[in-house]
C-alpha cells in the first residue's frame, strides 16, 4: 500500500512538474484575486474578519481550479484504466490524489499568504503566523479530501467544470466557517497568537469525518 501510494504520488508530481498544469495557475489566480479585491473593496489594507474572509475565499477558489483538473488527465489519457488493471488497493489512488492536492495547496499558500501579507494585510503577520499555519494545515486537509472525492465524482460527467464547484462549495462551507473564524483574530490589528481551540477542533472533526467517508466511498467511483 505504502509503495503503491508512493509510486502514484511520484507520478502525480512528475506530471505536474512536466506540464505545470495546476499549481502555477492556482498561484497566479490567487494573486489576481487579491488585486481584484483591492479595487472591488477600494481598501489599501484590511484586517480581522474581512482579511480572514478574503484570504479563505481566495484560497478556496484557487483550490477549485486544482480540484477541477485533478482527475482530468487520468481519465482522458487512460491512466485510470491502467490503474484499475493493476492488482492494487483502490484506496491507494485516493491517498495519492489527496496527498497530491494537499501539496498543491501548500505550494499555493506559500505564494498566496506572503503575497496577501504584502499586498492587502494591514497588521503584521508575525504574531499570528504559527496559529495561521495550523489553521491552514487543518483546513487544507479538509479541502483536499472533499476536493478529491468530488473531483472523482464529477470527472466523467458532462459539464464537470460546472458541477465540481457547485458540489464542492456547499460541502466546504463548514471549512470556511471554521477557518475564517479561527484566522480572523490572528489577522486582527492587535493579534492574539493562538487560534481558538473550538475551531481547530471543528476542522479536525470535519477532516476525520470526510476522510472516513471518502475512504468508504471512493472504491465505488473507480469501479469501471
Amino acid at each position, binding site marked *: 500500500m505504502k509503495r503503491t501510494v508512493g509510486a502514484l504520488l511520484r507520478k502525480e508530481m512528475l506530471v505536474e512538474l512536466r506540464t505545470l498544469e495546476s499549481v502555477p495557475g492556482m498561484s497566479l489566480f490567487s494573486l489576481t484575486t487579491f488585486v481584484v479585491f483591492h479595487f472591488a473593496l477600494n481598501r489599501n489594507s484590511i484586517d480581522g474578519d474581512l482579511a480572514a474572509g478574503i484570504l479563505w475565499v481566495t484560497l478556496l477558489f484557487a483550490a477549485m481550479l486544482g480540484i477541477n483538473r485533478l482527475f482530468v488527465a487520468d481519465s482522458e489519457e487512460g491512466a485510470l484504466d491502467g490503474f484499475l488493471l493493476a492488482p492494487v488497493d483502490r484506496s491507494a489512488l485516493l491517498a495519492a490524489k489527496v496527498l497530491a492536492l494537499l501539496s498543491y495547496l501548500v505550494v499555493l499558500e506559500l505564494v498566496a499568504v506572503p503575497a496577501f501579507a504584502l499586498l492587502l494585510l494591514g497588521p503584521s503577520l508575525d504574531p499570528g503566523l504559527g496559529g495561521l499555519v495550523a489553521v491552514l494545515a487543518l483546513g487544507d486537509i479538509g479541502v483536499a479530501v472533499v476536493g478529491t472525492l468530488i473531483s472523482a465524482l464529477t470527472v466523467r460527467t458532462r*459539464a464537470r467544470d460546472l458541477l465540481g464547484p457547485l458540489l464542492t462549495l*456547499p460541502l466546504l462551507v463548514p471549512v470556511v466557517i471554521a477557518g475564517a473564524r479561527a484566522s480572523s483574530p490572528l489577522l486582527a490589528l492587535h493579534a492574539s497568537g493562538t487560534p481558538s481551540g473550538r475551531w481547530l477542533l*471543528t476542522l479536525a472533526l470535519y477532516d476525520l469525518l470526510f476522510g472516513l467517508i471518502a475512504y468508504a466511498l471512493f472504491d465505488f467511483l473507480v469501479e469501471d
Partner: protein
Amino acid sequence: MDWKGLATPRVLAVATAVVMAAALTLVFFYAPLEAEQGFLQKIFYVHVPLAIVSLCGFIAGGILAIAHLRTGDSRWDVRSYVAIHMSLIFGLATLITGSIWAKGSWGHWWVWNEPTLVSFLIVFLLYATYQPLRFAIEDPERQARYASVFAITAGAFVPMNFIAVRLSSAYVHPRVLGATGNLPGPMELTFVISLAAIALLYATLYSLELHTKHARAQLRALRRRVDERTDVPERASARSAAPSLPLPPRTVGTITSMSGRPRAGREA
C-alpha cells in the same frame, strides 16, 4: 421490504387527510396564542415539521443509497432518488415559510443570525445539485452508483453542517419557539400532531411517486412488446435525471403469454 399491503398511496392519502385536518383544527382552535408573536407564531406548526421531515428525508436518502451500494439493486437507488426529490420540495417549502416567519417577526425576509435556517439553506443548495449531477451522467448504472455516493456524502454532511453553523453564531436568537422541550402542553400536542401530518404527507407523496415509477416501467415494458410484434424500431427514450426501474428480461413471445408473467417492479 414489502410495505405494499400496509401502505398503499390510497391508505396513506386518507390517513394524511384525517391527521392534517386534525392538525389544522388544533393549530387554529386549540393551541393558545403565543404571548409575544400572537397569530404569526402559528406558522411554527408548519415550518418546523416541514424542516424536520425534509432533513429526515435527506438522511433517509443517504441510508437508502447505502443499501443500493451494498446490494447493487437499482430499486434502492430509485427509493433514494424519490426520498431526496421529495425532501427538496419540502425543503423549498421550509425556506419559504421560514422566510415569511422571519419577515413577520424580525422584519427581514432573511436573517443570517438564525443558524438553523442558514444551515438549512446550505444543505438545500448542496442537494439542489443532486439532479444536475444525475442528469450529467449518461450510463444509467454509473448514474445510480455516483448518485448514491453523493447521497451518502451529503447525508453525512447534514449534521456536520448544522454543528458548524450553530457554533458560528455567537449571538443566537432567544429561541422561545425553536426548542420543543420547553413548549407548554397544548402547544406541544399541536406540534406533535402537525409533525405527524407533515410526515404522513411526505410518506404519501413518496409512495405515490414510487408507484408512478413502477407504472411507468410496466408501461415501457408493454410498449416494447407491442413494438416488437409490429416491427417498429425501438423508441429512443428521452434522457432524464430520474432513475427508472430496470426492464424485465427481453423475451420474444406472444401477447397471450404475458398474462402469466410476474409484473415488473411489483415488489417494492
